[in-house]
């Protein structure tokens, strides 16, 4: 899959392009899973903004080639073994975890914007994180601008 090519490709620009491909396929899965609003937001936010940020940074740092003189064979082997064991453990743990089907028959309106808006503004715990996330964005913007100044 394209996620494997993200990890294994030599040129970082290829990694970003494969990650964009992965994001589009995940957005396609969101549309299949009846989360239409989330699929569109996913495409806009991830493939539109975050990947563009990554491309800016890569182009600014001018990383064309990727040479890895410091990755020893032992660490590569250890990473492969631990990643493989992690995957085996997770797959075995979640093997029959998809249990009960929902009792309500109509599942076609879960992901609509109206329903998501109702849940976001009516439920117990989701209004406060919504407002706090605006403070989070403010903090991250201030941090990003402050960290990129040449002279402090």
């Amino acid at each position, binding site marked *: 899959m394209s996620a494997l090519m993200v*990890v294994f490709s030599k040129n970082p620009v290829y990694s970003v392009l494969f990650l964009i491909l992965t994001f589009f396929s995940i957005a396609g899965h969101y549309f*299949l*899973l009846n989360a239409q609003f989330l699929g569109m937001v996913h495409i806009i936010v991830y493939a539109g903004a975050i990947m563009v940020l990554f491309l800016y940074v890569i182009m600014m*740092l001018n990383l064309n080639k990727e040479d890895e003189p410091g990755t020893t064979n032992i660490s590569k082997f250890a990473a492969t073994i631990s990643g493989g064991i992690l*995957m085996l453990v997770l797959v075995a743990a979640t093997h029959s975890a998809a249990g009960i089907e929902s009792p309500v028959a109509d599942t076609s309106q879960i992901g609509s914007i109206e329903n998501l808006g109702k849940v976001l503004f009516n439920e117990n715990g989701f209004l406060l994180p919504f407002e706090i996330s605006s403070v989070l964005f403010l903090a991250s913007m201030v941090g990003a601008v402050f960290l990129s100044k040449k002279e402090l």
Partner: protein
Amino acid sequence: MELIPGISTEHYIFLSVVLFCIGAFGVMYRKNAIIVFMCIELMLNAVNLLLVAFSRQWNGADAQVFVFFVMAVAAAEVAVGLAILMMIYRNTGTTDINVFSKLKG
């Protein structure tokens, strides 16, 4: 709009686990800090996919709102992380993450 039957939830669990493990393996394997960031984003996306699959199964929109917040946090974290990376590059001249094993002194 009619109901799309779709793929069963177990397949989505497997897909999300595979994506998460590929991301985790990529974080451990690659040395370039930008690619490490991209693998972290891949792990976050795997978790998002799992949340949306379960929201379809349990017929509740709570999980999709949670995915919304996870996406927002990931976007903020990418902005700050890339700013930190640029500062590191400006100070050390390389994007190698093994530079930081020599931080003392």
